[in-house]
């Protein structure tokens, strides 16, 4: 490529419009051609003036402040890294502050608004947590009340059933007394001709962990298992059961301490027993 060929590229060079290959070739030529260097400077000056063809626009004031912050941060970083030279030290005395631009009131309001919004959000979140905690406490209290009501209703139902059973015309009653392992205990077993039976026991010792009291129906030395029950802290216990057909007449009733799941043959001590 001749000097004249390169000269034809200078205008495009000034506009950064050369393709990569031509740009590299021209740059190499410019390193050694003073004439082209002078020409490209003039073309670049002319091209730069085209910036005036764009409409002038005022940038926001915060751009100036950002620049100030950035260059000061660079200076602080340089000082912190211990790379401050003598020349740098001399510069510090020459540093003047940027002229302050009028503060953007709306931007400040925006900042305060953001802070206020954040505070309101935090307050709302705290309020929600407190409400949630209070709700949990109330829910637990309600659950306890409901549980108590259920127990009362169950007890009432049992007493009603016991009352009905005792007032039925064919009701039978059997009294159980405590043995030497539970001398203070006693119980009453009521049942009708259908075998529907209800037991009310008092004064029983607390059943050990994993153990419960089991009712037995005994006739002709045959021991028929009934249901198991666990007395409350006062030693009171109730039980509703169905007496096997063969044990309703002239039977003996006994209560033993057995594994909680119940057993088919008695293994533990007799705590209560009826007279034969």
């Amino acid at each position, binding site marked *: 490529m001749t000097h004249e060929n390169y000269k034809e590229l200078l205008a495009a060079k000034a506009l950064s419009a050369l393709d990569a290959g031509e740009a590299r070739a021209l740059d190499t030529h410019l390193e050694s051609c003073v004439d082209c260097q002078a020409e490209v400077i003039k073309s670049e000056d002319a091209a730069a003036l085209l910036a005036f063809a764009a409409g002038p626009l005022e940038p926001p004031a915060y751009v100036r402040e950002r620049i100030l912050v*950035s260059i000061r941060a660079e200076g602080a970083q340089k000082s912190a890294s211990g790379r401050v030279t003598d020349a740098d030290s001399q510069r510090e005395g020459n540093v003047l502050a940027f002229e302050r631009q009028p503060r953007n009131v709306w931007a400040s309001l925006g900042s305060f608004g953001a802070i206020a919004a954040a505070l309101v959000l935090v307050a709302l979140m705290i309020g929600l947590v407190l409400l949630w905690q209070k709700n949990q406490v109330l829910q637990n209290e309600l659950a306890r009340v409901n549980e108590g009501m259920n127990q009362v209703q169950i007890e009432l139902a049992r007493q009603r059933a016991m009352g009905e059973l005792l007032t039925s015309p064919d009701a039978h009653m059997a009294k159980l007394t405590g043995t030497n392992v539970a001398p203070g205990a006693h119980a009453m077993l009521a049942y009708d001709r259908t075998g529907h039976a209800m037991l009310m026991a008092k004064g029983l010792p607390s059943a050990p962990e994993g153990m419960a009291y089991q009712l037995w129906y005994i006739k002709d030395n045959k021991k028929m298992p009934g249901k198991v029950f666990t007395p409350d802290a006062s030693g009171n216990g109730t039980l509703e059961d169905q007496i096997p057909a063969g044990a309703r007449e002239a039977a003996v009733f006994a209560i033993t301490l057995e594994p909680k799941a119940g057993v088919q043959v008695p293994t533990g001590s007799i705590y209560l027993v009826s007279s034969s």
Partner: protein
Amino acid sequence: MSLGVQLESAEGSDVELLHAVARGDEAALARLYDGYRVILFGLLVRILNSREEAEDILQDVFIQVWRRAKDFDETRGRPFTWLVTLARSRAIDRLRQLGARQRLATGAAQEQTEAVSDALTDTIRVAERETVRQALAELPEEQRNTLVLAYFDGLTQSEIAAKLNAPLGTIKTRMRSGMIKLRALLGSQLENFG
């Protein structure tokens, strides 16, 4: 005082400011920013078609000025050219990163809506702007459009040829002829910058 004398005086003072910036003079950078922010921001918005992007680039440009002022050599160009070239180069790079060239190219020859504060109407820059606009208006339309597509949209000669569906040689001729004529029309101002 004539426009040329005013410009020459401004350029001389800008050289001093750049030397001061090179010495770490923060106030000198502030004065350069105050003198060029409007023209550079207008240029950046025109190229990027986004005020937010233009704000970022304007900030980046003056941080680069702070770091690279010591590289400025007044024997190889004017401060104005150095600043505008730096800003335009950064904007074109960003434009290419954004991949928005095709979108923006459609509006290449459109005039940017003017939004300038009243305070600027009495500045020297308004007179310069009118001179440049008048010079552009005197160029043949094909030459003007070629210069505008290159300058404001960052298109290369090959890309302009493809966009206008014209032979590459024709585009090269239009660009070269357009720049020669522009230099002639702006000659008096360029001579003042010597």
